């Protein structure tokens, strides 16, 4: 039981990171039907900025976190205005390829800056833990789960009740009608990328706050958010949350139990499990668990 709870806490921590990334993917996809493969690089940029501000400039973690999120939001916004906006209306495939190019363009200089060392983001959680009835809970895990829950709740309120949130949903539903209501669809596009950028920086910071720190391969974490959104359905906010939970928990349980029960699969099989889950879900429900069956293009 202790082992199970331990694995659950680990799974929820992972899910928090995937969720912050998946929500960004979905917000962008919903507003402009663009699937961005630049997100992992944007996350890496965010983590690096936080690390740079916190460690190199010694600004303190919270200031660094805020600064990193803002810088990443700006980067994401520029990417949208310069690279993506002129391509609106072009084939989805062409835009997807373009975002792959963006990914490389952002990641290459950041990788050079990170170098081969392990960087810290200067987070205050360190390796602190609580022992709750034998279950070891990292301070970091609590911070991540609480933050992800707050961000998820804020987004829910934003989309449901605010003027701009409604405008974003309206744009996702029917761009022409949104324009006819006086919504500046271009601003909605920008806002989507800004929100996604800020959330990616947060995710990158969390991903870099564990033992392994920030390295060039922190990037791989963001790749696993992709199965999470496909599992949940590309255009569903709720789906992104559920998808992140499914992938995060599956990964943690596999890491915990696979050695005992399925050792023949080899070490580190948990790294593959997100893609296995993805495959299984897509075989049963091609639009993901919560996706709209016909995702219409405008």
């Amino acid at each position: 039981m202790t082992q199970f709870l331990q694995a659950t806490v680990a799974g929820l921590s992972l899910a928090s990171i995937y969720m912050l990334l998946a929500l960004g993917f979905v917000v962008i996809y919903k507003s402009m039907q663009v699937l961005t493969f630049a997100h992992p690089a944007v996350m890496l940029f965010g983590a690096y900025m936080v690390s740079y501000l916190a460690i190199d400039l010694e600004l303190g973690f919270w200031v660094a976190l805020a600064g990193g999120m803002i810088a990443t939001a700006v980067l994401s916004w520029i990417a949208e205005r310069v690279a993506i906006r002129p391509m609106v209306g072009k084939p989805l495939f062409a835009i997807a390829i373009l975002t792959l190019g963006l990914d490389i363009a952002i990641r290459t200089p950041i990788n050079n800056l990170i170098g081969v060392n392990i960087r810290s983001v200067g987070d205050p959680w360190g390796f602190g833990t609580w022992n709750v009835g034998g279950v070891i809970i990292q301070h970091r895990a609590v911070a991540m789960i609480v933050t992800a829950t707050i961000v998820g709740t804020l987004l829910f309120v934003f989309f449901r009740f605010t003027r701009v949130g409604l405008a974003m949903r309206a744009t996702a539903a029917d761009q022409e009608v949104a324009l006819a209501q006086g919504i500046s669809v271009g601003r909605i596009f920008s806002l989507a990328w800004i929100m996604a950028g800020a959330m990616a920086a947060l995710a990158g910071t969390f991903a870099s706050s564990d033992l392994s720190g920030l390295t060039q391969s922190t990037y791989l974490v963001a790749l696993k958010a992709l199965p999470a959104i496909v599992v949940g359905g590309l255009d569903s906010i709720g789906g992104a949350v559920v998808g992140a939970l499914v992938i995060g928990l599956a990964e943690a349980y596999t890491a915990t139990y696979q050695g005992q029960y399925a050792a023949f699969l080899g070490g580190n099989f948990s790294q593959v499990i997100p893609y296995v889950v993805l495959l299984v879900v897509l075989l049963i429900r091609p639009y993901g668990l919560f996706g709209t069956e016909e995702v219409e293009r405008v």
Partner: protein
Amino acid sequence: MLEVANLEVVYHDVILVLRGLSFSVPDGKIVALLGANGAGKTTVLRAISGLLDVHEGDITKGEVRVDGEPIHKLRPASIVDRGVTQVMEGRRIFAQFTVDENLRVGAHTHFSDLEKNLDRVYELFPILKERRKRTAGYLSGGEQQMLAMGRGLMSNPRYLLLDEPSLGLAPLLVQQIRDLIVEINRQGTSILLVEQNATMALSIAEHGYIMETGKIVMDKPATDLMKDEDVQEFYLGLHAGGRKSFRDVKHYKRRKRWLS
């Protein structure tokens, strides 16, 4: 006054759809714009509300003016801000949203007056108030049309452009929609009513324009249009005696494009 002057519109850089078309909607009036399928009625509305871009269309000549000020270079959001709102053909409500949310989206440019305009719309369309928490996609066709019109009113427009509001509705509902248009107009909103149902449109309009292949071919007070034999024949479906051929219509000039 909302004016369209000498408007020329081209789709995809090559397809000329409006060929120098002019008309006006005076304040406080209902003006009908009639024409057969493909005449270019919807294109006129798109040109006014700035939605041509979405369809790869461009205004190549002419102007759209509100009180003499050109608005045809503005973006849709600014045009709504100037008091011109279009209710699109086919209702186009947000099917997944609730009735209330649809109306709130309509209030995007006038959010500070949300409550006031919401009250007004719910008073005009009590059925929508009853259904305010329902998913809009499950409303009946007539209710959806009311919702589309209500959503348009949420920006408190001076000019409401209605694209075929009677489309696909049963006669009784057409009556109801007609009465609602009259009431909206009575409350001070000028209306440009695009219709194929000429009987309905002319029964409430002050003035009517008839367009064919991108031009205005007739322009008279609505009561005169109702009495016009050719209009009766081609748009009202009332004609006495044998079937007339189009060629026999003298003053109803059809432009022979292959000659020009």
